[in-house]
């Protein structure tokens, strides 16, 4: 197999493709492996619910946060999830705009990833509040206090960026889904499924008019999603860069965070594609070519991250601010050095394996590296949030931070939430964007005919 391997297998026809994808969504009974995967994830969701209930009852004190480390898991996991979601959007929107043919078969997966990543991220900002029931004070609406939010705060920008991102993602995802829902509707055999998918398809029948405006609208939507996804992660970066805190006060944070989004996005998408193409035997749609491309992209974003890390170190010492240096030394050599070096290893070193073409096709390696990146990105956020805060300007205020049980339970709960979401979408929603695949197949056909 090689990089010039086609993005779809020649044997694939519109009919066979449609039938297979619809068959997955319409299965009477779920696969066994599906249950094996879903049950533990559902259990984790239960854990999440428990954690949240107790949090609201007792207060954020149940977490490890303290003075001076006032932000902990809630923020860093939020950033982590947002990065994962953004990665999905970038694949589905950005690469749509550049007409990357390999995107069509995996963009639905990328979009589900965006959707449920955003969902997992979305609950954190509210949990994070000391008085979560007052979160609506961040909306602007005419109230009896005649008060408005404080628009200078990066946190408010973040809140609205997240708000926009979540809703826009849902619209974008659903909009691209409509024609495929129609296909499923027409393949459905039971009245119940016909009605459900039929209602969701909103009566899409593929008329000339429907197709024409669909393409136009979808194109513009993608063109909007691209800057939106860049903006949300830049703004998340500003949550930190906007503060004068040592370790945060850096102009490179917005791009730095976007690089992180790319890296974790590609890693997660690989982690989802690899088992799915195997379990749902879609190797002929998600070919070695896809893995190759994604690995290359992962490698590229890893190099970007390396650049960001090195600039971080450079500016700290070139800037010569004492507090910054003290903090950075603590980060690199202090109690939290495993976090720093862990991030270095997983985000910078490990991906370098992908310089080798062979390893770019070696499934175990890919899985290993991607898992490493996922962990590494979390460590990076831990390093940014916690180690920066634990060394403020005044030595008298130095502190330490350790996650409590509830910190971890919430984190794993959200992981459960994400995975159950993905599994449900695999179970009930066409996992490949069929109408885009059809165009792709058609193109290949015509290409061959002209070639022949």
């Amino acid at each position, binding site marked *: 197999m090689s990089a010039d391997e086609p993005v779809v297998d020649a044997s694939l026809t519109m009919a066979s493709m449609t039938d297979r994808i619809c068959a997955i969504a319409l299965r009477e009974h779920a696969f066994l492996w599906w249950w094996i995967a879903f049950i533990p994830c559902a259990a984790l969701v239960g854990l999440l619910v428990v954690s949240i209930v107790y949090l609201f009852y007792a207060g954020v004190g149940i977490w490890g946060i303290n003075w001076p480390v006032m932000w902990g898991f809630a923020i860093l996991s939020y950033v982590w999830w947002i990065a994962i979601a953004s990665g999905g959007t970038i694949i589905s929107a950005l690469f749509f705009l550049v007409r990357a043919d390999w995107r069509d078969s995996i963009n639905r997966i990328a979009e589900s990833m965006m959707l449920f990543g955003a969902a997992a991220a979305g609950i954190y900002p509210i949990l994070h509040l000391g008085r979560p029931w007052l979160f609506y004070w961040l909306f602007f*609406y*005419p*109230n*009896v*206090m*005649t*008060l408005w939010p404080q628009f200078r705060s990066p946190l408010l920008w973040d809140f609205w960026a997240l708000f926009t991102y979540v809703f826009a993602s849902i619209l974008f995802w659903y909009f691209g889904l409509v024609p495929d829902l129609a296909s499923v*509707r027409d393949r459905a055999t039971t*009245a119940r499924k*016909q*009605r459900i998918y*039929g*209602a969701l398809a*909103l*009566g899409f029948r593929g008329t000339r008019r429907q197709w024409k405006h669909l393409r136009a609208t979808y194109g513009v939507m993608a063109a909007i999603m691209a800057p939106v996804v860049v903006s949300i992660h830049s703004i998340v970066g500003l949550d930190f860069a906007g503060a004068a805190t040592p370790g945060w006060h850096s102009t490179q944070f917005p791009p730095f965070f976007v690089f992180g989004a790319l890296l974790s996005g590609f890693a997660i998408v690989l982690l989802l594609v690899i088992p799915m193409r195997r379990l749902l035997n879609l190797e002929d749609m998600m070919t070695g070519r896809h893995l190759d491309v994604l690995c290359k992209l992962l490698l590229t974003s890893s190099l970007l991250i390396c650049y960001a890390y090195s600039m971080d170190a450079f500016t700290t010492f070139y800037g010569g601010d004492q507090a910054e240096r003290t903090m950075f030394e603590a980060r690199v050599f202090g109690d939290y050095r495993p976090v720093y070096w862990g991030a270095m290893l997983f985000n910078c070193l490990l991906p370098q394996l992908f310089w080798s073409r062979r390893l770019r096709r070696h499934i175990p390696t890919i899985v290993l590296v991607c898992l490493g990146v996922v962990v590494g990105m979390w460590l990076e956020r831990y390093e940014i949030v916690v180690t920066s805060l634990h060394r403020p300007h005044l030595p008298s205020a130095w502190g330490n931070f350790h996650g409590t049980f509830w910190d971890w339970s919430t984190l794993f709960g959200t992981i459960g939430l994400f995975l159950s979401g993905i599994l449900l979408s695999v179970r009930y929603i066409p996992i490949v964007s069929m109408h885009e695949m059809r165009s792709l197949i058609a193109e290949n056909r015509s290409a061959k005919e002209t070639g022949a």
Partner: protein
Amino acid sequence: MAAIFGPAANLASKVFLLLAAAALPGGMLLWWRWPKTDYARNRREAVAQPVPFSHQHHVAGLGIDCRFCHASVEVSSNAGLPPTYTCMTCHSQIWTKAALLAPVRESLITGIPIVWRRVTDLPDYVYFNHSIHIAKGVGCESCHGEVATMALTYKAKALTMKFCLDCHRNPGPRLRPKSAIFDTKWHRTADTPSPATLLGIYHVPDRNLTDCSLCHR
């Protein structure tokens, strides 16, 4: 084959979507209006008291000055409630047998205070000071309404933060001459001094009256 939906489904689905769309602005409107309603602010609800005291009778009828009972209103943040002794200054002479007044006599004998129900309450994080408002020409009526007409006392104004700010942003028009401060029936007339003059008379300070720190500590 038979179609999945009948012709009626088209209209039904459109109507459903329109209603769903309408729910959003509707909800927002409710959210905005609800706190302003009298119900949410429990205005105009007479509160049952151990003694059905009538301001109408005592103030409008007998012409007793507010300060006779609310003695510290000019010097303290707290206007003060009349001690049993104050009630008994008259009621040891008149209505000495009235059943309505039994709790008052009871309190005098046992020395256990009468427990009144609160009518106008502000949140604990709001530090309202009566004396300064009186000193600067704000009438009782501005916040308590026409108490002189209340057979049973009720909360007359919304007393939301907006209510306070409306006046703090532009005090002039709400001020009244010294003589009228305790007159709950007073209204601006042609010969009332202009807002500007009143502000001058009372030396309303040049400080920012909408500072958070003015009321919240």
